[in-house]
Structures are given as structure tokens and as C-alpha cells.
């Protein structure tokens, strides 16, 4: 049963990935004319890039052949040549992955821990001042544009208090005599981006945790537990929270879109040299091959994240059947 369910989900994801590839392919060709006309108009495109694009798209061949050529190149990891960087897209993208993983990873851990805690307290103290404050916090952080929050934090912590640098990953031109001083410099650059992204995510996690916990509290087995004479503290810890944690797994996957959106903005504001910043650079340089490559990578990772969440969920919650 379980195997069937997993297989079905994997197949579904593969189909979606295929659609994404098709979508991605046509998206960048909906401009009138061929891909070349789009690239020729870009003053940054070098002769080499134009030649490579011709080759990559198999121009001159019928459209379905062009699509298969694109597909074939894709499977070999060939995403074309970036206009700005004059290097293969795959290389450029690869070099920017690590900073994003570190930044987003830290922000995720921080916001999940704080968000869940806040959600539990909120549900536990429902209707009190603490709950109202937590709810307002969640609603306000939802309404604040991420990049603007970043600007405010820069104005306060970097310009006003001079506690953290405004941008970059390491202080430029500085020589480090030991690893520790380098890590310290790195961490001080990392602090504000992680804080900004976390603030945006905490509210989302807190709100969901609160609502699922409140849903769980009305289940019959909670009444049963109460009837058995367990005290409230025990019931919340042993019965309610474990059950409320389940939907959080799905939320982490659903939140991928939100996280990616936030990352693009945060990295842009703080010049954090990750994928989000790269996307911003690609957008403003109208570097279409690079943009296409990043978009493909992002969408495929979102689909995979959803798949992993679905499978994990099915193993944790025995009620999920095929």
C-alpha cells in the first residue's frame, strides 16, 4: 500500500517536472521571433553566446526537433552560456548555491523553533494578551514587504547602531590572520539577512502551529485523555503537540515558495552572493539563459521538496493511504 502511494507520488512529481521543463522552454520563446532576436537585442550578449544559443536551440530545425535538442542538452547539464558572466550557466549557478543554503538553512531552523514555540504558547494562552500580541506579530510580518524590513534593519543596526555590516559576505580587502576572525566576520555579515528572513517566516509557522493545535485540542482523544485524569500540561506535551507537528511538515514544503521569494529579496538587499542575488542580477541584466536556468532549478527543487514532504508525511501518519 505504502509503496504504491510513494510510487504514485514520484510519478506525479516526474510529470510535473516534465511540464515545468516544457513550460520553461516555451516561456522564454513566447516573444515574437526566435530566441536569437531576444538575445540580439541584448547589448551584453557576446558573439560566442549568440553562437552557443543557435547551437543550443538547434535553430533552423523544425520546432519539435528544437525541443528535443533542448531536452538533450538539459540532461547533459548544458543550460547555455550566461551573458553577464560569459561562463556556462550551470557553473555560475553552482558557485552561488552554498551561500544561499547556509543563509536559508539557518533562517529556517531559527524560525521553525521560534515559530513553533510561539504557536504553542499562543494556543495554550488563547484569548489572552500574549496570544493577541503573537497574532498581531504574525499578521504584521505577513504584511511587511521583506525587502523593506531589510532596509529598516539596515537603517537601525548598520547605520544607526553600527553593529553589523550593510552588505556582502566578508569585509572586502580585509586579510584574516586566523580562521576564527574570518568566521566572526562571516557571521556578522550573515546576522541581518538571517534575522530578516526569520522574522518573515516565524509568523507563518506560529500561525499554523496555533491553528492546528487548536484543532487538535477539540479532537475526541483529547477529551478521553482528560477523562483519564491526566493534567493539562501532560496532555499538551504528550498528546496535542506531537499530533499538531504533522501538518508542520507539509507547511515547510508549502512554504518553499515563500522562502524563495523572501530569499530573493533578502539577498538583493544585503548583496548576499547567493542564488537569489544571482536571479536579481540576471533580471536586471536581462540575462535570459541564466534566468531560465535559475528558474528551472528553483521550480524543480520546490517540486522535490513537496515530494519529500508527502512521502515523510505518509510514513509518519499511518492514516494516509493510497
Amino acid at each position, binding site marked *: 500500500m505504502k509503496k504504491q502511494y510513494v510510487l504514485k507520488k514520484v510519478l506525479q512529481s516526474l510529470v*510535473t517536472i516534465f*511540464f*515545468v521543463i516544457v*513550460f520553461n522552454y516555451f*516561456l*522564454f520563446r*513566447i*516573444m515574437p521571433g526566435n530566441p536569437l532576436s531576444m538575445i540580439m537585442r541584448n547589448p551584453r550578449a557576446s558573439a560566442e553566446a549568440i553562437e552557443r544559443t543557435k547551437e543550443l536551440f538547434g535553430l533552423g530545425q523544425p520546432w519539435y526537433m528544437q525541443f528535443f535538442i533542448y531536452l538533450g542538452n538539459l540532461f547533459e547539464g548544458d543550460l547555455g552560456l550566461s551573458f553577464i558572466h560569459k561562463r556556462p550557466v550551470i557553473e555560475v549557478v553552482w558557485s552561488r548555491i552554498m551561500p544561499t543554503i547556509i543563509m536559508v538553512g539557518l533562517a529556517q531552523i531559527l524560525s521553525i523553533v521560534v515559530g513553533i514555540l510561539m504557536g504553542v504558547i499562543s494556543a495554550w494562552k488563547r484569548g489572552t494578551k500574549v496570544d493577541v500580541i503573537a497574532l498581531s506579530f504574525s*499578521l*504584521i510580518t*505577513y*504584511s*511587511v*514587504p*521583506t*525587502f*523593506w524590513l531589510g*532596509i*529598516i534593519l*539596515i*537603517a537601525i543596526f*548598520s*547605520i544607526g547602531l553600527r553593529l553589523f555590516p*550593510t552588505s556582502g559576505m566578508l569585509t572586502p580587502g580585509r586579510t584574516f590572520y586566523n580562521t576564527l576572525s574570518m568566521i566572526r566576520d562571516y557571521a556578522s555579515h550573515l546576522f541581518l539577512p538571517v534575522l530578516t528572513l526569520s522574522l518573515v517566516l516565524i509568523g507563518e509557522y506560529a500561525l499554523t502551529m496555533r*491553528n492546528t493545535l*487548536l*484543532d487538535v485540542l*477539540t479532537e475526541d482523544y483529547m477529551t478521553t485523555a482528560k477523562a483519564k485524569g491526566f493534567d493539562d500540561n501532560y496532555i499538551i506535551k504528550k498528546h496535542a503537540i506531537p499530533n499538531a507537528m504533522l501538518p508542520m511538515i507539509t507547511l515547510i514544503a508549502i512554504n*518553499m*515558495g515563500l522562502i*524563495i*521569494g523572501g530569499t*530573493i*529579496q533578502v539577498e*538583493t*538587499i544585503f548583496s548576499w552572493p547567493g542564488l537569489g542575488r544571482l*536571479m*536579481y542580477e540576471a*533580471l*536586471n541584466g*536581462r540575462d535570459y539563459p541564466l*534566468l531560465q536556468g*535559475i*528558474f528551472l532549478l*528553483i*521550480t524543480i527543487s*520546490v*517540486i522535490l521538496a*513537496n515530494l519529500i514532504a508527502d512521502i515523510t508525511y505518509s510514513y509518519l501518519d499511518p492514516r494516509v493511504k493510497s
Partner: protein
Amino acid sequence: MSTIKKEMRKRKIDSFIKSYKTNKMGLIGGAILAFFIITSIFGPLIFPFNPMEFGQASNVLQPPSASHILGTDDLGRDVFRNLLAGGRVSLMVGILATIISMLLGTTIGLMSGFLGKKTDMILMRITDFFLVLPWLPLVLVLAAILGTSIWNIILVIGLTSWAGTARVVRSQTLSLKERPFIERVRAIGADDKTIIIRHILPNVFPLVFANTILVSAVAILSETTLSFLGLGDTTRASWGMMLHYAFQSGAASSGAYWYFLPPGICVVLVVLSFTFLGYAFDEILNPKLRRR
């Protein structure tokens, strides 16, 4: 319309107004939104603003004063006037994009739920596809390809935000379709079109309404983010464009708070007011969905 129906509708509206009046969140949201709608309609008439008209070099990035109550920007333009004009653009984008999204989402949801079978399968696959695609990158890529006029931005936001509405409408349609009153209407001889428009749509509408208001919040945030990231319409002075110029000119590092704070605060307030209204209407109109 028969008198009974008229009476029923009137009663419904009366009870809606009654519950709205006691809903704190809804009242606050409504008041904030009304304030911004009024200022965006009349503000630019009283204090006109031309984004292409730059001030003198001596008048650049001036802090608030009697002649410029919110100071001037890096091109010597009056921030307060820009703010009023910006509200008009941002609200317009939000409302028009929402209308596109609502029409698409409702139509697809109704068709999917009512027609079922293959139509349902295909439409729901497309919906899932749009739900799974990460929203901001999609919007950014579409805007970059289509070009950055305000109409393209509205179109892009509308075309990418309907999936949630379609889902909600579909599930509601599915449950309505099985209700006895639909069967009764069908027995009298009503065709599909009549059933959908006269009987299903009015019952789905409250749900769409609450959902739509939440979409408006997303649409306004999208326009702000798009403009900020350099994909905005440079000929329109939206709040997002203000923030874009503020950041580009280094307003944060030069301490020009009067330049980068007001547009951001306005965006937050408007988005918050839509969110409040959305939650309030959801509570009033869909008591079954109410989370305690």
C-alpha cells in the same frame, strides 16, 4: 425577482451588516482601507504630482519642512505628493489584478467542479501546477519577458494568483452540486448554464469574496516587490517605485528616513487592512469554516 427572494436577500445583507458592525478586525480594516481609497482618489487632485518633473539640485533629499511636509527625494520631488499619487497606482494594480484573478479562479473552479470528469482532471492539473510553482520567481520571470508596463504587471499578477480561488470554488461547487435543491431545479428542466449562474454562483460567491480580498493583499505586495526589484513601470509613481528609487539612491545609508519609511508604512497598512477585512468576511460569511 420574486418578492420572497428580494426579502431573503435583504435579510441576508442586513445580517451581514449586523455581524460586520461587531467585528473589530473588520471595522479596523475597513476604516484603514476607506482612508486610503479616499486619499488616493482625492489626494492627487488637490496635490498633483508629475513623476517626470524634477526639482532643483539644491532641493534634493531635503528633510521634512513647511513647504515639503515629508521632505524631498533624490530628484528633488515632493515625497508627500508622490505618496498620494503612489497610492492611486498601487491600489489600482491591486484591484485590477484581483478582478482578473477572481474571474479566472471562479470560472475554472466552477467548470472543474460542475462538469467533472476529464475537464475537472485537466483543469485541476493546471491549478496544481500553478500552486506548486514558486510565486515570486514566476512573476519576476513573466514580467521580465513580457516587459514592464503597468498593464503587463497587472496581467502577470492576475494570471499567477487564481489557483487558490479555483480550488476553493471547486470544492464548494462539488458539495453544492449534490444538494437536493439543485436536483429539484434540474427536474423542473433548468439547463447547466442556468444552474451554474442562477443557483451555484450565488452560493459560491461569499467564499470567493473573502478569498478575493486576501488576493488583493498579495497583489499589492507583488507590485511593490516587482517594482522594487527593478521590474516596475518607470512612468508610474507607485509605492514600490518610490522604494526602488529610495534604495537605489542609498536613502537608508544616508539616513533619509522620510524617503524610505512613508511608502513602506503605507504598503503595510493597506495590505494589513485587506488581510483584516479578508479574515473578518471569512468569519461572517462562512460560519462553517470558522476556526472557533
